[in-house]
């Protein structure tokens, strides 16, 4: 079985700074991969390159065995790769329904939107993800939602588009315990359906709990690729990371 996505020797520079240095990784079907690294390790650049926000300077992006050219966000979404960005990529003054369908609107001919269908779908989705307030419906502006609810909208967008790979960039940052648990439940549900997740996190305990495999990034380079069998506990993962960053064995 070909990996859903594979990066081969991908590099990305911004001016004189090398943000990614010959990074290679892959994500297989039905697995949860944890991507970890210190601040400035290149995690966000890697994600943005992976989903077409930044074009790579060199290296290959391979989708289900086929090398792709002119990779961009639209093509990534067409390839059923959805991303919940760290900033959630929402437009706060717009409604929940417009945000859920942003860039993938349900259309009639000539580009007119299937308004009723979108609203019905959005109402169904926000019920599914646990919105219960009578004050919130699909037409409510996203800016009026709490942090956890906004995360819910970003995740709902990924669910609706029936993604085969969902990339979650720091999805638990600034969330309450209950909201964090909801994110974990979501990841487990996605996995149970045979879909894949690339989970980027600062909190090693979160990443350890949820992932089948770990990729450690440091200064733009992929330093370690470990399976869960290789790492006995989150503490050991932290130790490996520390040794990676400092270059000293503990």
């Amino acid at each position: 079985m070909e990996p859903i996505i594979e990066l081969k020797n991908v590099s990305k520079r911004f001016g004189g700074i090398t943000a990614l240095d010959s990074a290679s990784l892959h994500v297989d079907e039905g697995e949860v991969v944890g991507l970890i690294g210190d601040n400035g390790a290149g995690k966000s650049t890697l994600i943005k390159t992976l989903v077409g926000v930044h074009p790579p300077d060199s290296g290959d992006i391979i989708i289900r065995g086929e090398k792709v050219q002119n990779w961009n966000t639209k093509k990534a979404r067409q390839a059923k790769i959805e991303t919940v960005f760290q900033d959630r990529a929402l437009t706060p003054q717009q409604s929940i329904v417009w945000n859920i369908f942003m860039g993938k609107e349900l259309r009639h001919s000539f580009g007119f939107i299937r308004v009723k269908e979108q609203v019905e779908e959005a109402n169904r989705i926000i019920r599914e993800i646990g919105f219960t307030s009578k004050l919130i419906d699909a037409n409510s502006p996203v800016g009026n939602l709490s942090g956890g609810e906004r995360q819910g909208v970003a995740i709902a967008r990924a669910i609706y588009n029936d993604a085969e790979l969902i990339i979650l960039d720091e999805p638990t940052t600034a969330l309450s315990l209950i909201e964090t648990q909801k994110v974990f439940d979501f990841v487990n549900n996605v996995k149970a359906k045979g879909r894949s997740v690339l989970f980027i996190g600062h909190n090693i305990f979160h990443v350890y709990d949820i992932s089948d495999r770990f990729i450690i990034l440091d200064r733009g380079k992929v330093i370690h690729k470990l399976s869960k069998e290789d790492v006995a506990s989150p503490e050991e993962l932290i130790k490996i990371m520390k040794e990676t960053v400092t270059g000293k064995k503990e």
Partner: protein
Amino acid sequence: MEKKVTLWSYLADNSRPVSSLFYFALIMTIFFASAPQVFFAPKFHQAVLTVIPIIIFLVIPLVFIVTMGEIDLSFASTFGFAAWVFASLVKYFSFDPFLGFIIGVIGGAVVGVLMGCLVVYGRISSLVASLGALFLIRGFLFVVSDSKSITVIEVRDHWMHAALVGKFYGFPMQCFWAAIFIIIAYYLYHRHVFGVHVHHVGDNPESAAQMGVNVDLTRIYCFMFCGIGAGFAGIFSTLINFTWWPTQGFGYLLLGLAAVFVGGTPTWGGVGTIFGAVFGSGVIAYMETGIVAMGWSGLWRQFFNGLIIILALLGHRFHGNRIR
């Protein structure tokens, strides 16, 4: 889960156009009460309704531009450019006026596309770029016309004149075309992928780009739409006056922008209102003539224009600040 829609919630959800309607109604009430003999005369309204559609053709595309978080000042010169293309083709090249109309509007669209490309690919602020274009195009018109007007009296007997700017039982036909323009623009703004993308780009261009919205193309289309609106306005104005003149359209620059903001579209992007802009156009058009009709000196016109703009904007503050 769906919220119950009450009259109050409907008014709250549409507070910007509703308050613009309120300002319009307030001004009209003052005018009617102060000078009933003028304001109850149908001819007075006929005269204003002759001009309002021109303002609407200019203002509604500006709502798209401002919603997108940009500004376009060049529309006042694109107005003159499209009208010059039309008048020149009809006068000097004996083009059928309808063909001249189509080519003139296409000319406006091309200027809009160039304006959009300048902003998107030149990475220049739209305020500065469109200010430059405003003078550049106007200067070009002065040079090519040698600062002389072009009369197109020959269009009077053409079917297009009656259809576009004739009278239907005393009612200016351009109001009918402006109404169609408003309806199309409303659906484009609220129900079409283009309008939805304009909102997303104005709200948060980075998010829109991350979600696969073609931000650059949306921006260029928006400027193109502004050029098309200015083209319509310029040619309609030429048809009404049977004349193109080198400064044509320049007087609409600040009035057009004022109508957008009086109409309730905020400066920060991401939100706007088409119907609000229509009422804003009404406020501006009636202020222009109403002050004089009330018996005040014309010298007061700009003063009251300014006053109503400031008061309307203060009123729109109650709709809240930008949601982040």
